[in-house]
């Protein structure tokens, strides 16, 4: 659509610019030999992944007892990791859907990678509810599958059931969205491979591109479908983490039982999602020379979002304390007091400093332009968000109603092993994605580039 319009006005210059985009993005996947750093990173990721595989093997064959969980703290690292990964998965949909609907053109440089990240993060997240069950081979009982086992049917009052639906819907929509957006680019890959004589690749990309020919009709259908999916998945950005937060909010436990959780969790999820996008993209952008596509202003915009969501999270922390005091509920007040000053005070301190203090640096423009600093801050935010979930889950359980049930919690090597394994899996998939699939939405970048618009530089905010 818009590409054609551009061709009419400044055919030579625009064509050259579009070619450059195609060439630069495709070169990531077309390079004969992978980058050395990429190989090193992959080796590390696969090692971590294998540690995870071993941890899962031991876990499934021995029992949940290999973890540090116990009768007083029944959820700890398992659900912490689940919520953390789900949170990370939020940036993808937000960028793809919400920013699309609000016409934020800067999203195009990162939306593909963010969507891929979402899918991999949700895959990692999904592992935990499955593996944290005592008998994971029966976990399918949570699905409403018709069966011949009498009265066996899920219990829909349980927030865990809601999780099953929320997360599986989210994963499905995310995959659809990601894949559908990739179809025109896959067709580009197909064509380039065919031209370069890489037959097998051409066939694979050909199958994946679903016979895309780039006709006006194709583009029309594509744009419609994209819009519909964006519309469908926008509520998901807010619903998934709200539902996840219901696991806690609907329970009895002081420290869990708070109505603030849905917005608080969603803000935190977006916060951590953007941090993870930058954590991954900053090095890869450098590695594959994509600075002219993923521009500094895009990175700056993400920093601003983190600043905003970080402050929302900070307000949530303060509100929790205020309400604990204001409610006059001594159990509630004690739960929060022991969070900040109890045996897990260091976790609380890590959470507040990483999530509230660290983003404050993004007020400064100089920081927003310093990619190394941004990267370090993003890592800290990810750490802080992990601690947020740990603080909510473990410290609340460790100080429940009856003092006789107060207990401490220590993780074991298998807790750590599985977490490391999911990080390995996540990075591994992401690296493979970078190597074999179009990491940047070429067609969309072209559409959003200045050359695509009549009369030169793009009108701000304009897209398609």
């Amino acid at each position: 659509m818009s590409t054609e319009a551009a061709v009419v006005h400044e055919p030579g210059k625009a064509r050259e610019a579009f070619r450059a985009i195609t060439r630069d993005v495709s070169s990531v996947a077309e390079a004969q030999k992978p980058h050395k750093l990429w190989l090193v990173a992959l080796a590390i990721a696969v090692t971590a992944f294998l540690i995870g595989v071993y941890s899962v093997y031991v876990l499934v064959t021995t029992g949940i007892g290999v973890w540090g969980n116990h009768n007083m703290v029944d959820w700890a690292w398992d659900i912490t990791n689940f919520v953390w990964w789900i949170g990370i998965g939020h940036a993808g949909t937000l960028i793809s859907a919400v920013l699309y609907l609000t016409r934020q053109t800067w999203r195009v440089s990162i939306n593909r990678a963010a969507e891929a990240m979402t899918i991999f993060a949700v895959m990692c997240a999904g592992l935990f509810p499955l593996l944290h069950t005592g008998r994971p081979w029966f976990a399918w009982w949570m699905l409403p599958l018709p069966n011949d086992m009498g009265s066996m049917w899920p219990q829909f009052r349980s927030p865990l059931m809601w999780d099953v639906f929320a997360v599986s819907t989210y994963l499905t929509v995310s995959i659809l969205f990601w894949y559908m957006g990739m179809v025109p680019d896959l067709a580009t890959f197909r064509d380039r491979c065919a031209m370069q004589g890489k037959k097998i690749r051409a066939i694979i990309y050909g199958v994946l591109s679903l016979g895309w020919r780039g006709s006006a009709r194709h583009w029309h259908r594509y744009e419609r479908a994209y819009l519909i999916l964006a519309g469908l998945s926008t509520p998901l950005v807010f619903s998934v983490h709200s539902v996840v937060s219901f696991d806690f909010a609907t329970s009895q436990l002081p420290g869990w039982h708070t109505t603030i959780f849905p917005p608080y969790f969603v803000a935190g999820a977006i916060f951590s999602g953007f941090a993870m996008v930058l954590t991954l993209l900053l090095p890869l952008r450098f590695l594959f020379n994509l600075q002219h596509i993923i521009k500094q202003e895009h990175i700056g915009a993400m920093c601003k979002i983190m600043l905003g969501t970080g402050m929302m999270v900070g307000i949530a922390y303060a509100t929790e304390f205020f309400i604990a005091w204001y409610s006059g509920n001594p159990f509630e007040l004690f739960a929060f007091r022991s969070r900040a000053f109890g045996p897990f005070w260091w976790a609380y301190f890590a959470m507040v400093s990483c999530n509230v203090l660290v983003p404050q640096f993004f007020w400064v423009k100089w920081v927003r332009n310093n990619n190394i600093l941004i990267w370090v801050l993003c890592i800290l935010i990810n750490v802080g968000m992990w601690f947020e979930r740990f603080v909510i889950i473990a410290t609340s359980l460790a100080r429940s109603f009856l003092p006789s049930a107060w207990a401490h919690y220590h993780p074991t090597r298998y807790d750590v092993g599985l977490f490391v394994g999911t990080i390995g899996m996540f990075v591994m998939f992401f690296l493979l994605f970078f190597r074999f699939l179009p990491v940047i939405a070429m067609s969309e970048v072209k559409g959003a580039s200045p050359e695509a618009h009549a009369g030169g530089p793009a009108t701000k905010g304009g897209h398609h």
Partner: protein
Amino acid sequence: MSKHEHEHQDTAPTPEHGYWKSLRELEGKASWQLHPHTREFEPGSDEPPPADPMSRRNFFHLMGASLGMAGIAAGAGCQRYEAEKIVPLARRPENQTPGQTLQYATTFELGGSAHALVATSFEGRPIHLDGNPEHPFAGGAIVPGTKRHGGASTFAQASILNLYDVDRSQTPLNRGKGATLDSFKAALAEIKKGLTGARILSEATSSPTVAALRKKLEAAGAQWLEYEPLSWDNERTGTRTAIGRTVRPLAKLDKAETIVCIDCDIFVEHPAAMRYNRDFARSRRKDGSLGVGKMNRLWAAESVFTNTGAMADHRLAMRAELGLPFALALDAALSNQPGPQSEWLREGKVQQFISVLAEELKANNGRAVVLAGRRQPPTVHALVAKINAAIGAHGTTLEYVEDPEPNRMTHLQAIQQLAADMRGGKVQTVVMLGGNPVYDAPADLDFGALLSKVPTSVHLSEYANETSQLATWHVPKAHFLEAWGDARTWDGTVTLAQPLVQPIYGGISSIEFLSLLLGDEKAGDELVRTTHEGKGNWKQLLHDGYIPNSAYAPAQVSVQGLSTAMPLTPSQQAGSKRKNGELEVVYHFSWASYDGRYSNNPWLWETPDFLTKVTWDNYALVAPETATALGVKNDDMITVKVGQRSITLPCYTMPGQARYSIGLVLGGGRTQSGHAGAVGSMRNGIVGPGWNTYKVRGSENDTWDIATGCSIAGGGGTYTLANVQEHWNYRPGSQKLMGYDPTETKFDPEVDRRAHEIVEEISNEDLQKNNAWKAESEHEFWDDEKEAEVTKQKARHLSLFEEHDYHGHRWGMAIDLSTCTGCNSCMIACQSENNVPTVGRNQVMRNREMHWIRIDRYFTGTVDEPHVVHQPLPCQQCENAPCEQVCPVGATSHSQEGLNDMAYNRCIGTRYCANNCPYRVRRFNFLDWNKEYREARMKVRRLLFNPDVTVRMRGVMEKCTYCVQRIQNAKIRAKAQLRNPNPTVAPRTGTIGGPLPDGEIETACQQACPTEAIVFGDLSDPNSRVSKAHADRRSYALLPELYTRPRTQYLTRVLNPNPKMPQLAREGH
């Protein structure tokens, strides 16, 4: 028994039986028919497997397989079998209904005192032990007019686990090497020759049959000696000093209004503890009632904090050696004489305690009793006899009975004399019946070395223990459930023991052994029967389990001329502040291994001590103030030096432990124990848990029970004791006590705040004065229907959920905190009834213990003088159960009778239910706790499992079910008997059977509780005991503000402090 059937035919082209599975089969072409000459199964699989003597399972396995084969074989070309027919039993074995349990009365003896029991047997295997409610001494009813009730101690109940213990001795040993019973019998001829001059060292026993055999042996020239490391002989000696005759004091606590315990634990340690529990509960709730009434008052002065101290209305922590000045001062105060000179007695608190107590004793003349403990020297017991005479206890609250063996040496004298004789080379033959003197004899005797020098020594014992290893012969002893026997309860009632199974490992009982020694070789039943010839209808006696009116005869006694000029030692004259090197060490029984004999019993080790909450270890108890002063900390390895001997073991700083008194718990560190200690990688091999404190327990200069001039030193590193409740919480995040004044240091303020709400208490005075007082019940918070009734308004239903509607039974429970003495019986009962696994020390440290009922205890007050509150906590069976809402697969759901049912097969193990349980009573199978029972050597242990309760696999959640299997069994019985429905309760549609009479169903914990503190029943019957308890003004629900509407409610603990004593500073009371 039934036989297998194996029909056989030649290869048949069509199915002979007329049924076929496929056309190919019909045509005779099914794939398994095509190759008649190839072996269909793996070699060996169609031959019977090697015989496994213990496996009932293998039997069914084979039977099932053979029957299956019989069908297949009809058409298949497999091997020919002999034709066999399945025949049913022509007659059912007598009294056996498959699937039904049978109860037999039996007994077991611990430290010379019998426990009357009822054993439950399922298809020939004993699976559960309870107290015998019909027994005149052990059974009874607390509330007059209600059903008689048993109650059994933890040791009695857990001893069933020893029956199936694979570590029990299975063959005789000759000099530590395996032998046979026949070879022993051959050697016996030699031993019998040396019977003259032989020493027979027995455990304390009250068995009349043993006594009869003993007479014969003594006639043959053998000398009979009895030794028990935890002996009550001081009481015997002291009473004799005061009275002039050997008699046994027997308190009638149900008649006492003031009970004084001087270093005496009447609830767990005393040989009559179960009876004392009941009697205490009776006078604690005078009319057996729930409400106001005259209550007894319990005073305790003790060194180690015991259950008695925790229950006491007034407790004085004193070093055990101060028992003498205490008794002297009390005696003096009663007779208005000046007391002895002791700095301690001049301390304000002590002075006040003794003077108020003396005043009360005078006022309660004839309604008070004083008891002194096992550790206290004979002088104190003599003084106690004198005091009891002075306060008119004789004949009212205290009875003396004739001792059956007035001339017996004390246990300590006996072992000392034996050791002296052995040292002098006078002993050629020693026969030891039970016991483990090499382990538990006084350390100065060096019994092991002496024993090795005796030419012939025989040890009859259930376990091949330390003594067995050094004896020339060891013979396996039968478990009490495998043998005939008899013993006397503390009052003397003869109680009979009958075997429920053949000896699993071929042991023989003490009486059979003695008979063998005498050359009679009589069977156990004959021996016991002969002893009790003519005492009544034998079958009836066996059925009842006791011989009526066989108690020791009451003795008419008086105390005369007891001189109170008893000199005090310098340390008895000193105050409560001492220095290192002046400490006292007292030896305390182990709640888990008793004197070491239960060292291989994981049930007992994993049941936490009532007050310390420690499992799987023994330790040195040190008062926090003393620990601070001497520079040691909790969980430090400390070296306790007693005279020239010393031992290094973990230190447990126990609030309320007497200052400068070190409590050494006995019974740990057995070297020839069994594999229980290895559970949870506690110890390797057969070393038992804990530390051997007998190593420092000498007998020189009367230091056997209380040793003085001791010292402790830290610096041995640290060792974490497996505690099921976090150590007593000082302040969140702080383990520091240094720098605090222990008399001022309060416990964690949050624990203090919550404990007041969780365990409600009120003084008897307040309860009586304030008729409007009512425990905070859930109604105050939530039941607006009641409110609406009062305000004549329409009830607003506060709940957002549709609430459950109940028809028919509504099961409920009430737990009376006034009479729960923390004896742990309910925990073992539940463990036995519900196949609750043990997890071992390491897993306990990870908070993974599995008990379905636990006893929470909280300290309030100061560290120096703490007040203990406690609370047994099973599943509360909420009507609005938070667990049920959150299970994604509906594995825990609400029954129509209000139980939170748990479907183990349905559970996938998300543990969400446990997280949402405010009472934290759910227990998750983090690992496969029953894994070891699949090992061939442990298979026999599976016979103990209650067949009515599922054995849970790993990955599923479990919790208290109110013994749902008992409820269902009772309902089925009711249906079978076609009981008329109770007209007061509308029968529920679909209910099997009608409503059940109150008391028909007893949960395991309720049945074991000696004080009937636990009451279970139907809340829909307004006249049931539980309904009345719930309606009582003392009744309250735990955490009512959560609106969980628990079916288990607690009855406020009523304390009865003397108004003249300083009152507990508790808010609101």
